[in-house]
C-alpha cells in the first residue's frame, strides 16, 4: 500500500532556485520498518535533489526488487519511477538512458539485487560507463524474505538468527573499481553530512557513479555480532576525508573551509572539494583506491567517502557517438528514409 504524505507544509519552508520547497521532492510515506537505514538514504536523496535545484520531472528513478527497491516510492513523487525485475534494473536504465540522454537517471538497488542476482548487469553497466547514479542500500541481508545472508555479508558476521556467515563478502566498491567505474564512493545511512555531498557529486558526474551505502537492517541484521549494524559501522567507519560540494551556481567562497587537498570541477561546472584524512589515498588513481580499500579492510575498518573519481570520464553516449538530441525526440522524417531508397535497394537485389 502507498500512503500519501499530508500536503500541508509550514509556509516559511525554504525554496530552491526553482521555487520548490523540499516537499516537491518527497514521495509517499515509507512502509519500511521504523529505523530502517533506507529511509535515511531516501531523505538524503530528497535533500540533495532539492538543494541542487533539479527539476523533479527531469529525474527518472529505477529500481529492482527488494526493500531497497521499494524506496523510490518514498521520494521524488513528481518523477517517473520504474520498479523493474530482480537484479535487472541496470539494463532497464541503460535502455532508458539511450532513449533520452537529457534526464537524470537514479538507480536504487540493494545488496541482494546487486551483488547476487544482479551481479552480471552491475558489472556490465559499470563497464559501459552509463551516465547514472547507482545507489546500493547495503544491509548485508535479505529483508523481505526474513533475514537470509546476502553476498555482501562479511565472513564471520551473524544476523538475528545467530548463524555465522561462512562466505567471503563481495566488496561492491572493489568490484566497481575492478570493472572500471569512474566514480566510486561509500557511505553510511547514519551519516548524512557525508552522504548528501556524495549524492550531489555523483549526480554531477558524467558517467557511472556508485554510492555503496551501508544501511543497517533494524529487524534482521542490527545485532551485536553483525558487521552491518549501526554500532559496528559507527565504530569502524574510516572516512577517506570529507567532501564539500559546491553547485555551479553558488559562490565558492561562502561555505568552503580552507585546507582542501583537491578541487575538482565536475562536468556540469560544479566544484568538488576534497579534504583528506586517509593520506595514502589518491582518489584520482585507481590503484591507490584499490590499495586503500584493501588496507582498511585488512585493519577491520570500512573505508567510506569518495574513493575514486575519473576526471576524464566518457560515458556511453560519448562512446556510441549518439546524437545530442534525445533519440526519443527524433521525428519520423529523420528516421524513415522513404520509398526512394527502397527502389535502389530492390535494384541491387536483382
Amino acid at each position, binding site marked *: 500500500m502507498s500512503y500519501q504524505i499530508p500536503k500541508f507544509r509550514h509556509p516559511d519552508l525554504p525554496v530552491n532556485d526553482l521555487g520548490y520547497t523540499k516537499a516537491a521532492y518527497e514521495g509517499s510515506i515509507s512502509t519500511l520498518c521504523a529505523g530502517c537505514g533506507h529511509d535515511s538514504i531516501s531523505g538524503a536523496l530528497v535533500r540533495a535533489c532539492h538543494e541542487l535545484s533539479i527539476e523533479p520531472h527531469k529525474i*527518472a528513478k529505477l529500481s529492482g526488487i527488494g526493500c531497497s527497491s521499494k524506496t523510490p516510492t518514498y521520494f521524488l513523487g513528481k518523477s517517473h519511477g520504474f520498479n523493474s*525485475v530482480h537484479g535487472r534494473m541496470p539494463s532497464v536504465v541503460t535502455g532508458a538512458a539511450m532513449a533520452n540522454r537529457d534526464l537524470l537517471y537514479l538507480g536504487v538497488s540493494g545488496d541482494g539485487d546487486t551483488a547476487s542476482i544482479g551481479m552480471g548487469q552491475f558489472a556490465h553497466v559499470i563497464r559501459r560507463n552509463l551516465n547514472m547514479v547507482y545507489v546500493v542500500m547495503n544491509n548485508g541481508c535479505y529483508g523481505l524474505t526474513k533475514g537470509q545472508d546476502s553476498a555482501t555479508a562479511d565472513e564471520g558476521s551473524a544476523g538475528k538468527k545467530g548463524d555465522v556467515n561462512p562466505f567471503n563478502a563481495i566488496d561492491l566498491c572493489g568490484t566497481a573499481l575492478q570493472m572500471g567505474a569512474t566514480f566510486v564512493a561509500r557511505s553510511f545511512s547514519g551519516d548524512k553530512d557525508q552522504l548528501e555531498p556524495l549524492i550531489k557529486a555523483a549526480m554531477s558526474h558524467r558517467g557511472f557513479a556508485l554510492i555503496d551505502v551501508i544501511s543497517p537492517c533494524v529487524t534482521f541484521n542490527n545485532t551485536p555480532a553483525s558487521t552491518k549494524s549501526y554500532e559496528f559501522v559507527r565504530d569502524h567507519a574510516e572516512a577517506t576525508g570529507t567532501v564539500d560540494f559546491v553547485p555551479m551556481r553558488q559562490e565558492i567562497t561562502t561555505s568552503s573551509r580552507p585546507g582542501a587537498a583537491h578541487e575538482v570541477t565536475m562536468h556540469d561546472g560544479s566544484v568538488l572539494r576534497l579534504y583528506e584524512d586517509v593520506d595514502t589515498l589518491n582518489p584520482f588513481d585507481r590503484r591507490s583506491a584499490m590499495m586503500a580499500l584493501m588496507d582498511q579492510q585488512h585493519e577491520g575498518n570500512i573505508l567510506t567517502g569518495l574513493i575514486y573519481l575519473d576526471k576524464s570520464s566518457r560515458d556511453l553516449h560519448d562512446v556510441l557517438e549518439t546524437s545530442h538530441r534525445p533519440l526519443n525526440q527524433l521525428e519520423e522524417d529523420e528516421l524513415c528514409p522513404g520509398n526512394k531508397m527502397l527502389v535502389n535497394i530492390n535494384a541491387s537485389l536483382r
Partner: protein
Amino acid sequence: MKRLKSVNDFVIKFANVNGTGSASANNLFAKALFRMGLPVSPKNIFPSNIQGLPTWYEVRVSEKGYLGRRGGVDIILSVNPQSMAQDIREIEPGGYFIYDNTKPLDLRLVRNDITVIGLPLTRICNEKYQDPRQRQLFKNVIYVGALAALLDIDFKVLTDLVADQFKGKEKLILPNIKALELGHQYAKDNFDCPIGIRVKSVDKVGDKILLDGNTALGLGAIYGGATVAAWYPITPSTSVVDAFEKYARRVRIDPGTGRRNYAIVQAEDELAAIGMVIGASWNGARAFTATSGPGLSLMSEFLGLAYFAEIPTVLFDVQRAGPSTGMPTRTQQSDVLAAAYASHGDTKHVLLFPSTPKECFDFGAASFDLAERLQTPIIMLTDLDLGMNDNMSEPLEWDDSREYDRGKVLSEADLDEMESFGRYLDSDGDAICYRTYPGAHPEKGAFFTRGSSRDEQAVYTEKGEEYERNMLRLLQKWDTIKEYVPAPEIIASKEPTDMAVLYFGTTEASAREAVDYLAQEGVALDAMRVRAFPFNQEVEDFIDEHERVFVIEQNRDAQLRTLLMAEFEFGPDKLKSVLCFDGTPISARNIRKQILEHLPGNNVTPLHRKVRANGVGERA
C-alpha cells in the same frame, strides 16, 4: 541407365568445406540463374563451426515457381571428400555427380545409376595460381564456370554479375572472369555440353528480388523508426542487427553534427538485451531486440513484466532447432508455445508469422506501430530458413504517405487540459490506457511502472478485486488486439472440399506445392496461412467450415495445433498434424506423403505411435 533430363526444373547441391570461400561462388551461381529469369531458392545447410567442417548449398530451380524444398537431389557438385560418401548416396537415380577428380574417386563409392563428371579443379588451380589462398578461392569460381557450360548458363550473365559484385574493387573483376573461363573451357573441351539437365532463359521472376529475411527485417526496423537496438549475438538472428547497423550507418547520421541517430548496445546476455528494449520503449524510443530460442527462454521474465506493466516491446525471434542448444544452424518452427505464453502467471503475447522477406520487412516495421498502439510485447517468429537464406520475394515498398502510429501517449499540452491522469484507467473502453513519457510535464503525469499489482492510478495494491479487474482488462485488450494483427491468407481449392491445410511462416511454399500435387491426384484442399496470434475470427470460421484440417508445421509437438486447440477448444480429431522437425525445411514431397497417409481409407498410424515404434524413420 536413364539419365535425368529436364529444363529449368532441378535441384543441385554443392558440397563444400566451410571457411573456404565457397559461399560467394555458390551465390554467384544462384544469382546468375535468377538473372536468367528463373525462380531459384538457395538454401545454406551449414555447421555450427567456422572452418573445416562440411557445408552444403542446395539450390532448387523451378520454372513453375515452387520455392520450397522439393526433397531429393539431381546434381551434386562435390569438392569435399569428407562428405563424399553421403553426398553420392543422396543423388536421385539418373542424376549427376560432379567432383574434383584430381584425386581419383574411391571405387567403393561408384554407383552405376548416376553419371559421374570429373573436373580436375585442384590440378588446374595448382597449375595456374601460386598463392595458396588464391588456389582455394578460385577453385570455387572455376567450378561455377564449368557448371555454366554443363548447364548452359548464359556466360555473359555471369561476367556481368562478377562486375557488379566487385564494383569498387575493380582489380578483382578480371581474375574472377578468368577463373570462370578456365572452368567453362575445360567442361566444353571434355564433355558433351549441356548435360541432360539444363537451363534456358525465361521471364518468370518479374520484378522480384533475392534477399534474406534477416536483412529485410533489419531494414524494416530502420523504416519502422527504431532508434535503439539491444541484442546478444546468437545464430541465426545476428544478421538482423548487422543489417540494421549497416543501413543505420547509411541513413541515420545527423547531417549537421555527424552523430548517430541510433544506439546499438551489444548486451551481456539476452536478459539485459530485453531489459534495455523495455527501458528504451518505456522512455518513448522505438526499440527492438533480435534473438533465437535460447534467448527467448532467458527473456521470459521480462516479457511478463512488459505484458503486465504494458510496455511496448519488439522482439524478433529467428527460430532454430531446439530444445536447449539443439541444432543451432538448422531450422525449425518450435518456439511457438514458448513465445505465445512466455513468462509465469497468466500471460499471452502477440505473435507475427512472416513467410517471405517482404513480410519480414512489412511486419518488422509494423511491429513498432503494433507495440505502441497495443502497449504489449510483439514477438515476430521467423526462422533460420527465411532469415539466413536468400529468398525470392516481392520487392520492398514503403508508402511515403504512411505515418507512424505512436499509440496513446499524452503530451504536456494534453496533460495541462486534464484534471487527473490514471495510467491504467480504460477511458476509451478498448482496454488500452494512456501513458506518459518520463519528463513529460513538471507537475502531472508521473506514475510508477511496476511488475507488481497496482490500481488504475498505478499505485501498489494487494486488493483482490483491483487485481482481478486489471487482469480482466488485459483479457479484453486481447480482443482489441485481434482487430489489429494481420488477417490470415485463404486460398480456396478449385473443387469444393471439406478438407483443408493450415500452415504458417516458411511452410508456405512447400505447402502450396503439395496442395497442387494433391489436387492433380484428386485430393482437393482449401488452404489458410495464419499470420498472427491472437487468431482472428477468420481463423476460427475457416476451421469450423472444414471437416478435417491438416496443420502443417516444423516442430515435433504440433505447437500451432496445440495453440489452436487451447484458444478455440477444437477437438483433436478435427486437426491432423503434418510435421517435419529434422532441422531441414519441410519439403513438398513430405507434406504430400503425410497427408495421403492421413486420408480416410488409408492405414493411418498416429505419428506419435509410429515414432515410438520405429524411431523417427524415413519421413522426408
